[in-house]
């Protein structure tokens, strides 16, 4: 009898009901565009030739540095701040190598008039906050405000690609960007 009970108990234990509670998802459900290439022009800001040139530049950057760089224009941020939309998009797309997190997205949202350079953790010492701020303020926004979307995105892209290719050490970049932390 105890033996039979033991077997029953073993059988019960051997088939655990692995009921998983649904993973808690505090993030709002956003409708991200599909990652169709190195340029995702959902907002339709780029001429075909501009798109091709940007894609070629991003491909060259990845060949040389392995960093993954994507240009994205978004029709609507769906009520999110661009900072919140941007990092979620980066995670959704899985830009950058796993564990290295070397992905960058140049994110342009013309409807909201917002631009952001979203940087994976692995590249924060290359594309620093002040560098990104300066590129947006000085290279991208002036052209965008003129309605020259292609020019602004191109200028921003050149700056980002240049920095990704830079052989300067992190310390040299920190000095160049006047980082304090």
């Amino acid at each position, binding site marked *: 009898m*105890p033996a039979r009970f033991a077997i029953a108990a*073993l059988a019960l234990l051997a088939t655990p009901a*692995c009921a*998983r*509670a649904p993973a808690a998802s505090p993030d709002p459900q956003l409708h991200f565009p599909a990652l169709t290439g190195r340029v995702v022009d959902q907002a339709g800001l780029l001429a075909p030739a501009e798109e091709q040139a940007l894609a070629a530049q991003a491909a060259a950057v990845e060949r040389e540095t392995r960093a993954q760089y994507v240009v994205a224009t978004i029709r609507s941020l769906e009520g999110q701040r661009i900072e919140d939309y941007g990092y979620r998009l980066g995670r959704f797309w899985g830009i950058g190598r796993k564990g290295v997190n070397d992905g960058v997205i140049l994110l342009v949202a013309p409807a909201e008039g917002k631009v952001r350079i979203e940087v994976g953790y692995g590249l924060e010492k290359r594309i620093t906050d*002040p560098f990104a*701020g300066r590129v947006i303020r000085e290279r991208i926004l002036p052209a965008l405000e003129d309605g020259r979307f292609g020019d602004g995105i191109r200028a921003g892209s050149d700056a980002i690609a240049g920095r990704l290719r830079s052989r300067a050490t992190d310390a040299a970049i920190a000095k160049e960007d*006047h980082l304090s*932390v």
Partner: protein
Amino acid sequence: MNRNRLLTAMIVPVAAISLSGCGVNSIPTAEENAKAKWADVQAAYQRRTNLIPNLVSTVKGSAASEQNILVGVTQARANATHVTVSPDQLTDPQAVQRFAEAQGRLSAAIIPLQRLQENYPTLQSQGNFKTLMDELEGTENRINIAIRDYNGAVQGYNTRIRTFPDVIGAKVFYGAKPMATYQATTPNAEQAPTVSFDTNTSR
């Protein structure tokens, strides 16, 4: 007697193996994950803490008359650095809340500092101030993301230790306690720390 011992000897490894398939081992994993996410929260706040002395000294150069804003920030920073939460204190909601409140007071003290640029054009033209503002903004953003990730990890862990069958392992093997989520508090300006002018503001 012998038989009972034999049964126990048989059941324990089987229980361990079968439960590990769906969770007992994943409880410490979830716990470690939440603790690692907490370390990210602290690191992001630390980054902000490190930024503030530079910010204060830059503002001092252009807006020296704004002593009480500067002293307020410096004091809030000093207070915030005294409140820490070790990984083992994450099960203590009050410890987590004390940390959040101290950081919230610092957040509130920083707001008038950020607004100074509207009144002091010389600040805006100072490249260093813009650089610091970019870093501050980026850091606040990292803090927000780190908090969301931490809260997500805590919810996952808390759900796991309360859900069958993990709840058995959580109680029997680990004595697991729920962890506290992080509620960022941004107190009103009225609740900002009181200011005294004779305080040494160098740190």
